[in-house]
């Protein structure tokens, strides 16, 4: 089972509660060490929900500091090793996964919706697919991307046919967009 590391950033609150309520193991805010290498242990599997940018930097918001700090970035000396890391963070995918050569890592190329508000159920559904991939013995980023794209396509197609909610379509579309190469 993957461990979810969730930022304490107020603008994506209560992502931690929503993810925990769905039965997933969550470490949140100050429960996560300042050093990414301490938080991400070898041989373990993690899904990281945090802010990111297109340079491949993941920012961690700590409520005790009241601000965000650089937590993982391209060129960091003490990078995590030998872990499987799913970066559910905006933009960081292309740069950071290229840098984390000693991990099995996967990330998104653009904005991803936070598991809050009307997007909660959709993101949790998406993360169920992520959990399924994370449990597998083998890692193949290309294959993962294809499977996740297919999952999003199925769900988006359902939404388009039923036309239930603009936000649902918007959320699935955002996920599909973030999975482009």
């Amino acid at each position: 089972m993957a461990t979810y590391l969730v930022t304490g950033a107020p603008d994506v609150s209560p992502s931690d509660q929503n993810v925990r309520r769905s039965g997933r193991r969550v470490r949140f805010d100050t429960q996560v060490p300042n050093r990414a290498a301490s938080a991400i242990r070898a041989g373990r599997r993690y899904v990281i929900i945090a802010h990111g940018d297109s340079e491949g930097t993941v920012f961690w918001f700590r409520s005790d500091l009241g601000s965000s700090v650089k937590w993982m970035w391209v060129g960091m000396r003490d990078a995590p090793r030998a872990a499987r890391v799913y970066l559910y963070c905006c933009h960081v995918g292309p740069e950071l996964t290229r840098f984390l050569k000693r991990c099995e890592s996967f990330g998104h190329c653009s904005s991803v919706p936070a598991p809050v508000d009307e997007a909660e159920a959709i993101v949790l559904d998406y993360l169920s697919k992520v959990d399924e991939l994370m449990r597998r013995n083998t890692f193949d980023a290309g294959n993962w991307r294809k499977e996740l794209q297919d999952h999003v396509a199925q769900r988006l197609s359902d939404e388009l046919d039923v036309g239930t909610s603009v936000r649902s379509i918007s959320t699935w579309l955002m996920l599909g967009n973030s999975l482009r190469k």
Partner: protein
Amino acid sequence: MRESISQEFASHKPKAVVLDDNAHARRMTARRLRGRGFQVQECGSVEEFQKIWRPGMADVIVADWQLADDEKKHGDKVLIDVRRKDWDVPFVLVSGKLSEDLNRARVLQALLDEGGARFVKRGENGIKRICDDAEDLIERRDSTLLKVILSLRAGAEAGLTVRTSSGEKSLVDQLAELLRKPKDSHDVLRPVSLVRSKRAKVQS
């Protein structure tokens, strides 16, 4: 309006923007489009058009070629500008003088080939042809992309946003992002189109 378009738009009306500095011609075109079931917004200048138009917010643009004395504000320049932001929206360019100017005709041909637009020469049945071409171009659009645009438009008009892990993202921006590059929208929507066509085959 054609049945296929009515079905696609269901309870919505297709939206047309008519850009023409000649008030009489603009009103005539707008009236005919309204008569066909379009919701029409009229613009008397390029500035007015730039203020109201956003990618994904209109289903067809009808623009006069010669809009002002300034060539930078002619309809062909509007088309180029529109295509930078939206590769897909149907565009009908209208002129009464074009056949007299071979140079322009050559420019126009290149523009239409690259810009996915139609040209209508004013004159007999000119307005009817504008409406026919507008409907032709709407009919030819990718149905998945059109469905996504129509779904998001209501939210964009209502100013909806989605919270992401890099701030709030508006549906207006999401539409603009979807329509900025054909490759990007194809990459996102191709798997969806495949699912939809498979389902259609199974159902039939």
